């Protein structure tokens, strides 16, 4: 079947479109109308006072902070480091998150557990864990990358405003102290400590690799 060509007509432009000036005037007319309507409404006092009565009917906008838009469960807020049952960080200092981070805003200094600790040889722990929340672009890659569910962004809070830039750099203690939007510091996912039933039991030092 021979293809049929349909020639679309270019939308024509009148001189007033082309000159722009006329159209700008029309646009200004619309916005001016809205401006005067809005001002008349505000001045006439028909609109409730959003400060004294933030939840009143008739306010077109959301009266933050009295009223907040609900965030989705998976909304990415400030990071937190999840805890194990004994309160230590779940993080094993594998550096997956800092490698995945496109903004390169995670700094981790890994450390080995001391001799005799049941975890030695199986995993390391973060001696330092620092996130520069001002540099972070809140992409969530760190959360995706973590094999241990140790870093999460399910806190539901924004980064608060600080006066100096250094306050935006969250250290390990601060990250550990942040709770999820449900108030927990742990993670739903279970975790097997060395020695538990279900723990694979092969360690880095004696695994034969």
């Amino acid at each position, binding site marked *: 079947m021979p293809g049929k060509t349909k020639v679309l007509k270019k939308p024509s432009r009148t001189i007033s479109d082309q000159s722009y000036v006329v159209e*700008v005037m029309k646009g*200004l007319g619309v*916005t001016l109308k*809205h401006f005067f309507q*809005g001002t008349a409404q505000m001045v006439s006092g028909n609109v409730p006072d959003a400060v004294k009565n933030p939840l009143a009917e008739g306010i*077109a*906008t959301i009266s933050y902070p009295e009223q907040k838009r609900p965030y989705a469960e998976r909304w990415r807020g400030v990071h937190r480091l999840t805890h194990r049952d004994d309160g230590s960080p779940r993080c094993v200092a594998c550096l997956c998150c800092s490698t995945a981070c496109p903004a390169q805003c995670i700094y981790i200094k890994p450390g080995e557990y001391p001799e005799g600790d049941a975890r030695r040889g199986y995993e390391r722990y973060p001696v330092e864990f620092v996130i520069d929340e001002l540099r972070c672009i809140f992409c969530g890659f760190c959360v995706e990358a973590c094999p241990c569910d140790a870093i999460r962004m399910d806190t539901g809070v924004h980064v608060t405003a600080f006066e100096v830039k250094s306050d935006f750099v969250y250290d390990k203690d601060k990250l550990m102290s942040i709770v999820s939007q449900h108030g927990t510091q742990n993670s739903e996912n279970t975790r097997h400590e060395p020695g538990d039933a279900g723990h694979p039991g092969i360690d880095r030092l004696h695994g034969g690799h």
Partner: protein
Amino acid sequence: MFFWITSALKVLVAVGFLAQIGALLLWVERKQSAMMQSRIGPNRATIKIGSLEIRAAGLVHSIADGIKLVWKADWEPTGGDHFLYRLAPIAAIVPALCLCAVIPFGPTVYVDHVRDLYDPAWATDVATAARSIPLQIANLDVGVLFIFAIAGAGVIGAALAGWSSDNKFSLMGGLRAASQMVSYEVAMGISLVGSMMIFQTVRLDEMVTWQTQHCWGIFVQPVAFVLFVTAAIAETKRVPFDTPEGESELVAGYFTEYAGLKMGMFASGELVEVCVSSALITTIFLGGWQFPFVQLTGLEFHYFGINVSWHWAHFIVVALGFLTFTLKCVVLIFMQLQVRWTLPRFRYDQIMKLGWRMLLPAALLNVLVTGTVLLFLNSSNG
């Protein structure tokens, strides 16, 4: 002595006023856009004195912003040129402040005769003229040319900021600002040539005098008015010409790396420019401080067979002139802010095309037509 004291006073008042105008216009801009978009706008900041709560329709926010800007961490990028980095905000705001020096904001005040009816002899009487206050800081012979020179210097601030910040976005913003301002400077200058030919002067006070005696510049140069307003908005680097700081492409353009008060200087410098360009448009196209049909002597209406001559004391004419000038400026500032909230941003190449391929030829054509008409009128008169 009298001259120095009055001049110093005028400088103090004008610069003091313009330094505050940024805060005021910031509020106007916020509230105006809110009214336009069915929002509420600034309303939370409150000054509490006992049980009295002052919110002033959100005006307190400007004070809060000022305090915040002062107390912000004065962070500087570690790379780049620190001296130029600090110089840039000053270089951006000073030209804007200088511009107001040549704008006449009212008729000359003859201190000895404030209660008398106006007499043209005052201007030539040496003793009276010596004790007169022209409501203009510097009455330069080069007038408009001074304005072009200083307005052209405004680009240095943006370019320096872009260069010294050691940031790609800043550099792009600085380059865009420089090329945009240089391009529109050309169209802006040429669009005024027609007006200069008609007024036969480049002094701003004489331009106002001409308009007082004949008619407003907008009626003899309507095309130049549109061109000049467009170019002036482009010079202020505000929407729809704000590609130098287009936040969707360049974060904040040339002042990306600025914080606190330095950033505030850029922001308020922009608003000062809006104010000054409004004053300039008023002076050149809208009759300056002239209230319609009011001459220096008082109301003079001689049209449609109606002849009214109503003479007023000198100080009334002066006060009316000053108020008229302020009112015209306020309306123009309002319109400029309205344009900013109405139009979407142009693309960068569109801005360049508009400047070089539309405004410049139109301005040149305007000069040609004006010249031809003037030549024709002069030859038929003489």
